[in-house]
């Protein structure tokens, strides 16, 4: 739908309200592409371990823009728009591959792995006939090149010259929490995508909402992987758009607060027949059993016990989002650790004992607000400010996301 611009005013309450037209409006979606995804932000493109050798490439997206990420013969990474300078066809059709150069399938225009146009088929014609004028400049329509930043095995790209260096963009506290997980070379265990029936920002609202975790996800709560009454906290970094939430092992109370509040997720009679599913080791040595970290606009780094994953949030139109999951371990994992990570992966993804509900809940919001573009969600848990907090009965990082979003969008 299109909401008339004159009614698109942010509610006077500010950060504690998010108007529902923000998830529905086609014009907002177009402006997000320009001002956020092609603006001064870092988009996560993948793990370096996905492109281990010279000539390796993969395709992904920066917002709607298709991009190629490639490692050249010298080992340097590059990223460029997946669009031929000639007629705009995709250059790479597959999700990944390995080659010395890239040739457009349409008219065989050829590019090196840095995205430079190196050859135009029959540029001078055949036997003096046909071909392009001598002063033609097809290079003027060359695919855009992205600026890249790699940070401890993570690859980010940006199309703006104004985006700050990656470490400054993350902020010191978030950067430290990235390094905590990306502490050693990683090994890819596999991946899949979850197609979410909602606007991309609703997924970020969900990831940043530490308040819902123990209320929506009964599986978590019952087995005491995460109780709000366990110790932990939320750290908001960058300009509000980045956050990390974490839980410490077994330091909480028995969760009587839940029973007293009578919340649905407090049923304690439920036990696993095969508790090896949750068998975990404190491999990082700091007692943190859960760390969810998000970087504006659409990157999530996850440690749930020994289940490590990156998630890429890719908008696919106003009401549809692709969530790309890639699970990994460390290159020096033994077989027992790999088996543990694979078992714990039952917690995540579209069939995850925890994550399945996020896909459902965000879709419920998209459907619930269909007739209410002029109404707003209430984001007042933990106060009205943006800041770090030891309590996770809190929506501070949701407010942080919207603070960053509004700044980028000029709203």
């Amino acid at each position, binding site marked *: 739908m299109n909401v008339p611009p004159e009614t698109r005013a942010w509610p006077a309450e500010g950060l504690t309200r998010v108007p529902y037209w923000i998830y529905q409006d086609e014009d907002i979606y177009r402006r997000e592409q320009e001002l956020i995804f092609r603006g001064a932000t870092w988009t996560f493109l993948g793990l370096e371990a996905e492109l281990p050798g010279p000539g390796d490439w993969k395709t992904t997206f920066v917002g709607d823009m298709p991009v190629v990420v490639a490692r050249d013969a010298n080992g340097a990474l590059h990223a460029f728009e997946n669009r031929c300078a000639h007629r705009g066809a995709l250059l790479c059709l597959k999700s990944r591959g390995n080659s010395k150069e890239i040739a457009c399938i349409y008219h065989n225009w050829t590019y090196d792995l840095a995205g430079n146009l190196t050859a135009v088929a029959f540029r001078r014609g055949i036997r003096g006939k046909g071909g392009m004028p001598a002063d033609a400049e097809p290079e003027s329509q060359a695919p855009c090149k992205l600026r890249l930043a790699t940070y401890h095995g993570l690859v980010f790209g940006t199309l703006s010259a104004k985006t700050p260096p990656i470490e400054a963009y993350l902020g010191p506290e978030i950067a430290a929490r990235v390094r905590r997980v990306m502490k050693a070379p990683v090994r890819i265990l596999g991946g899949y995508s979850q197609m979410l029936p909602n606007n991309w920002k609703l997924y970020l609202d969900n990831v940043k909402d530490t308040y819902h975790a123990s209320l929506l996800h009964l599986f978590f709560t019952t087995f005491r992987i995460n109780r709000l009454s366990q110790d932990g906290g939320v750290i908001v970094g960058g300009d509000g758009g980045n956050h990390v939430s974490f839980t410490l092992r077994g330091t909480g109370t028995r969760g009587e607060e839940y029973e007293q509040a009578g919340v649905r997720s407090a049923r304690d009679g439920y036990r696993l*027949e095969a508790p090896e599913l949750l068998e975990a080791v404190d491999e990082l040595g700091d007692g943190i059993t859960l760390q969810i970290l998000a970087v504006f606009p659409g990157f999530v780094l996850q440690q749930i016990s020994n289940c490590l994953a990156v998630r890429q949030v890719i908008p696919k139109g106003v009401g549809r989002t692709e969530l790309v999951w890639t699970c990994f371990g460390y290159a020096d994992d033994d077989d027992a650790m790999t088996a543990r990570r694979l078992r714990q992966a039952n917690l995540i993804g579209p069939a995850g004992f925890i994550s399945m509900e996020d896909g459902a809940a965000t879709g419920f919001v998209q459907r619930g607000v269909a007739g209410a573009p002029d109404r707003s969600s209430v984001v007042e848990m933990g106060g009205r400010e943006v800041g770090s907090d030891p309590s996770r009965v809190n929506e501070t990082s949701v407010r942080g996301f919207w603070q960053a979003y509004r700044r980028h969008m000029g709203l």
Partner: protein
Amino acid sequence: MSPAVAVDIGLQLAVEQLLARYAHCLDDDRLEEWPEFFADAARYRITTAENLERNLPLSIVHADSRAMLRDRVSALRHANIYEAQRYRHLVSATLVERIDAAMVRAVSNFAVVRIMHTGESMLFASGRYLDRIRLAGERGEPQFEERIVVLDSRQVDTLLAIPL
């Protein structure tokens, strides 16, 4: 001897009956009976063709035992939140190969239509079942020692609650 004659029709039918009973069990929402199709130490996985081709071990669902399957059923019944929905399995093109006197290998195709309580139907999943079947399982009936569900696509719509 022509290939048609070489097919052990009794064996083929026994496997196809197992696959059919399995499909009806899930489609009829008799989830509590579903783990009984598997041996005690059975392996059940849902993965993607892409992971399989790239030799990557990650699964969407991963179980090493029937107990883990029972846990998934009780989580679906008592813990997880998802909208009411049903599946309709279409299973076909079953190829059966004997491993030895007790065991067979089977490959079959499946398509699963998901019917939401709202009435919305969609082709939810397609793929292959890669099965290892013990012909005389615990109750004398064929039983899965291993069932690997290979999804053709890497994309799953919204969530995958009910098993495939």
